[in-house]
């Protein structure tokens, strides 16, 4: 169970199972008849990204996180102008900007790579006894999602060249805890 304290009420939607970026038309090309017959111009061979399985989540920056044992009252303060970032990991040589751009279109237009505080944000919280190591962090409500990248050959055969997971912020910066 995770809790997040929010300065603003988040009404982020939960999206499951959606596949973005690769349109159904292109998908049908993969499984369709001989592309040389039905796709006389072939498929574009540029790298394409897709994001899927997006889920609303509190996104925190590990470098803006404080943690402690039960009974310890944690505190954190971030001055105005402090920037925190989401994380994108995975295989292949990927472009974070391309993944973010795809997530903006397919998941939530508010998604971004990083957020900057415009006021001083601070908070404190006591780690309860049922958590072995609780945390308090600067972050924002955002999304956890899977991503993949690849390209079509000239004969419209899809080849995946990378995949991974992204945690990207979307709403205003807040202080959250475990």
């Amino acid at each position, binding site marked *: *169970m*995770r*809790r*997040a*304290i*929010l*300065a*603003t*009420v*988040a009404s982020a939607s939960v999206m499951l199972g959606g596949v973005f970026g690769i349109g159904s038309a292109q998908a049908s090309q993969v499984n369709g008849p001989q592309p040389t017959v039905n796709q006389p111009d072939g498929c574009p061979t540029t790298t394409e990204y897709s994001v899927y399985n997006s889920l*609303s*989540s*509190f996104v925190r*920056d*590990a*470098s*803006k*996180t*404080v*943690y*402690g*044992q039960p*009974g*310890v*009252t*944690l*505190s*954190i*303060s*971030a*001055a*105005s*102008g*402090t*920037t925190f970032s989401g994380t994108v990991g995975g295989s292949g040589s990927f472009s974070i900007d391309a993944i973010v751009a795809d997530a903006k279109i397919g998941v939530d237009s508010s998604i971004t790579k990083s957020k900057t505080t*415009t*006021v*001083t*944000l*601070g*908070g*404190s*919280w*006591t780690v*309860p006894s049922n958590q072995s*190591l609780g945390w308090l962090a*600067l972050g924002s*409500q955002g999304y956890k999602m899977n991503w993949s990248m690849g390209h079509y050959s000239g004969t419209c055969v899809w080849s995946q060249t990378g995949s991974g997971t992204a945690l990207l912020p979307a709403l205003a910066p*807040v*202080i959250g*805890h475990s």
Partner: protein
Amino acid sequence: MIRRLAGIVGTASLVVAAAGCTSHQANPSPATRSGTASASAVPLPNPSPSNLPVGSKVLIQRDGSGNATVDLTTLAAGQNSVSIHWVCVGKGNLNLVAAGKVVLGGGCADSSADATIDGGTVPIATAKSLSWQIQTAAPNKWRLIVTAG
């Protein structure tokens, strides 16, 4: 299950101050020592919290880099709790370890301009040891202040 709470909830408090109102108090002349190396050239922010309670006593303030030891055994005698606040610039985390366990810790920021002030108040009654090891990567610069009362 994910639970999201708005506003001030349970034991947690949330403070949102107006921009430009960050207080940088002058510290009441604590003893200042260096860690394994001086970090005086690094303009780390002052970790002293702006809402330090009246009557608080500064036990120790230190600048340093990498691992170090902070022994509060004598300094914190008779106190109910000690509060430690710090800033850390570098890679990875800074941990405060007592009796082989992480009491509290936090991430280090890429730059001093982007560093958060991390902190924690530790009840003396539950502390197994007040001889704390600061554990962080050698190049990491840190500045901390320990208060009580």
